[in-house]
């Protein structure tokens, strides 16, 4: 009798163990299929160069559809602002962007090579900083705030001219020093959680962080319309958000730290097509 009870218990236990194994196998299959399903999209080939993958590859189908159609892409509301500002006269000099640069198509390739080294300032200059330098020096106008609609719109409008071109950021000559600083920032632990950028975007890339599929952190689509923000935002806003999440004090937009990090990341994305203005989750 005693033997029978133990026999029954062992049968029940072994059944439960089998069910648990089966259950985790199903969960494993589901997890795999989520990554695989996104990887199987034929549109990915355009956004994969060698072993580099743009953030586009990790988006859901709906987000990709939104980006691919220029009308449903909400970032174009800001592109329109940039387009109108391009020929709007502002400042003491009575000039607009179009007075010197003529048609906006002259900006082709600009987004692909920024940030660049400035000989006068002896440091790296991001596109937004360059726009403000020209506004101040050439136009005599008030500089725009980094995260304002005007600035994001202009950056997105200039970026749009080089859409599809491969990223081509140079780190030769004096820029090398700043590249190394940016790289050090990327691998440096910071904040209360004591994490570096690389812990998510290199070590755990292509894995799930809660419901999010972690990407390689490629900056080729900025300024991007982020669904979480419900508006367009700069790359430096994204850096600040990342820093806050690991409970570190974020740096200011346009600070040398973030500009160096931008240089490192953009050089890392060399070869990937410019996607500005992209849509991300």
């Amino acid at each position, binding site marked *: 009798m005693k033997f029978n009870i133990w026999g029954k218990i062992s049968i029940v236990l072994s059944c439960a163990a089998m069910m648990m194994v089966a259950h985790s196998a199903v969960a494993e299959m589901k997890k795999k299929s989520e990554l695989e399903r996104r990887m199987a999209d034929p549109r990915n080939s355009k956004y994969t160069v060698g072993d580099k993958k743009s953030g586009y590859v990790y988006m859901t189908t709906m987000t990709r559809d939104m980006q691919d159609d220029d009308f*449903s892409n909400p970032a174009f*509301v800001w592109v329109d602002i940039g387009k109108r500002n391009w020929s709007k006269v502002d400042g003491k000099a009575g000039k607009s962007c179009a007075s010197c640069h003529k048609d906006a198509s002259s900006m082709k390739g600009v987004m692909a090579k920024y940030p660049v080294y400035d000989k006068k300032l002896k440091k790296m200059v991001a596109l937004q900083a360059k726009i403000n330098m020209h506004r101040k020096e050439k136009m005599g106008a008030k500089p725009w705030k980094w995260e304002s609609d005007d600035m994001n719109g202009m950056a997105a409008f200039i970026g749009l001219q080089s859409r599809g071109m491969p990223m081509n950021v140079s780190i030769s000559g004096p820029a090398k020093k700043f590249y190394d600083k940016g790289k050090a920032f990327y691998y440096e632990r910071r904040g209360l959680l004591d994490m570096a950028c690389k812990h998510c975007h290199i070590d755990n890339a292509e894995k799930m962080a809660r419901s999010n599929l972690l990407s390689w952190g490629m900056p080729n689509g900025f300024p991007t319309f982020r669904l979480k923000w*419900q508006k367009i935002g700069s790359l430096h806003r994204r850096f600040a958000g990342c820093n806050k999440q690991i409970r570190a004090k974020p740096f200011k937009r346009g600070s040398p730290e973030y500009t160096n990090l931008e240089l490192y990341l953009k050089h890392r994305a060399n070869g990937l097509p410019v996607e500005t203005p992209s849509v991300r989750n």
Partner: protein
Amino acid sequence: MAKKPRVKVPSSAKKGEVIQIKTLAPHKMETGRRKSKGKLVPRMIINKFVAKFNGKEVFSTDMHPAISANPYFSFYTKVSESGTFEFSWTDDKGKTVKASRKITVK
């Protein structure tokens, strides 16, 4: 600089053709449930969108909270004559933003 609504209407169509119209209105769409510095941010959404063709209503919608920012609507309509589409978005403050597009029917 103020944001303008984006509207896409084909410039010409055949008589009786069913055309697609796309609209996107930039708006932050505050739900009234979000808090900023401990205080509720008052509700501020677009609550009405109307599309008219030559003065006659062809499409309209009432909106409620939980619709995302920059609401996007696309709809189909049949055109039988040349004319003007007029679009209007009204928000909680009673401010109305308008846009219009012309279409020629051959």
